[in-house]
């Protein structure tokens, strides 16, 4: 199938883009940064095209549905959302360094989708429980949320590196080239705000859908419970910052890392628990 071969190429392009970002960080030459950005953009366009082709292909097979219906498609869409959001953030903040830390996240998810033996890349019919117009809204909102949290996580890792190893050594290593601590803190905060809003929207659309499909808006299914835990962690992050400025910076970064681990468990770990959301095994 043409879409999966494009996606394999995209995986490689993302890796290339990561290398360019890395070179940019080491060499501090704007040309590397621009190349890295262009490479990521080309990858994203091809990625979008592959998703569109897959959508069209599913209609040609007579089982037309949006490509968000199984584990493979969800991983691919997650990687897409990470790159998409990252490029927007890069464009808004005019800072290319977070690319070194976010592109690998997209790359790892693409690799996992393409090469893991338990992930099937075939286009399958939509199982009856998912046949609903809520599918797009719910899944897109949730995955945009996860992607924003992934970016907050990547920037938090940058923050930790900068703060813990780089103390007093600015200018000597690549760490001196990382953005200032207060810019990183603001970037983490902005990504978390976006992710939190998206996750809330995802939970709300999910509960409306659950009300229609399962008869109750909240079933305490493992995925629902873990999405609530994730939501509470990020809610704590946002509120705690209002108490005192000592909660800015490192503590915010630590909470963003914990929150992303919880989001990852909501996305992947919950599949090992029995529950209503067990579609990803298909």
């Amino acid at each position, binding site marked *: 199938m043409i879409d999966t071969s494009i996606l394999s190429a995209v995986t490689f392009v993302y890796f290339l883009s990561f290398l360019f970002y890395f070179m940019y960080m080491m060499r501090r030459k704007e040309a590397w940064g621009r190349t890295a950005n262009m490479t990521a953009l080309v990858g994203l366009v091809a990625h979008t095209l592959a998703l569109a082709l897959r959508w069209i292909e599913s209609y040609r097979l007579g089982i037309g549905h949006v490509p968000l219906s199984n584990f493979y498609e969800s991983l691919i869409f997650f990687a897409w959302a990470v790159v998409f959001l990252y490029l927007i953030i890069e464009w808004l903040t005019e800072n290319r360094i977070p690319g070194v830390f976010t592109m690998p996240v997209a790359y790892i998810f693409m690799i996992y989708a393409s090469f893991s033996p338990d992930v099937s890349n075939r286009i399958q019919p939509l199982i009856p429980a998912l046949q609903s117009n809520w599918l797009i809204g719910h899944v897109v909102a949730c995955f945009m949320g996860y992607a924003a949290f992934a970016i907050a996580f990547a920037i938090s890792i940058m923050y930790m590196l900068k703060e813990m190893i780089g103390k007093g050594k600015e200018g000597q290593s690549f760490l001196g080239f990382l953005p200032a601590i*207060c810019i990183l803190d*603001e970037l983490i905060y902005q990504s978390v*705000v976006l992710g*939190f*809003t998206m996750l*809330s929207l995802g939970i709300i659309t999910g*509960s409306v859908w659950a*009300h229609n499909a399962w008869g*109750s*808006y909240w079933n305490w299914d493992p995925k629902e419970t873990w999405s609530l835990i994730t939501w509470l962690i990020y809610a704590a992050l946002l509120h705690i910052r209002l108490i005192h400025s000592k909660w800015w910076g490192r503590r915010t970064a630590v909470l963003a890392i914990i929150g992303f681990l919880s989001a990852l468990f909501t996305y992947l770990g919950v599949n090992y628990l029995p529950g209503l959301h067990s579609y990803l095994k298909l």
Partner: protein
Amino acid sequence: MRMGPAVKVHARSANEEAQFWVFQYRENIETDNPGLLQMAPQFNSSLFKPYVFELKGLVDRHYSGLQVTHDPGLPVVAGGAILMMVGFMITFCFSHRRIWIRIDKAEGETRMSFAGMSSRHPRGLEREIRSILDDYEKRDDIRI
């Protein structure tokens, strides 16, 4: 593969226990797929010795499963969800900033002092005050 009706039998005596399937059209399955029923012990209808089970026939009965929910609190939950999203939009998109400008006289000239407070983003506040100052900087009748 259609195998026709079957029942699952769970037989138990004081010291023995067995679970197996008993097919109604055993002979047909034997002729269509020879050896299939011997492949696994759970298809062996004489597993619970000395008895041999046989399915003579089944009477179908139709039934419906109905689920009824009644959620009087639903409008409250929906209202809460809408309120929360609107609240997010307000708190996250419009952070409030207050900027004070004090004008007084100092040494025969007019002095303007700027001060500001922000609910979030101290950097955004900095930028805003900086942009106000930049506007004044362009005029040569003003000293900064």
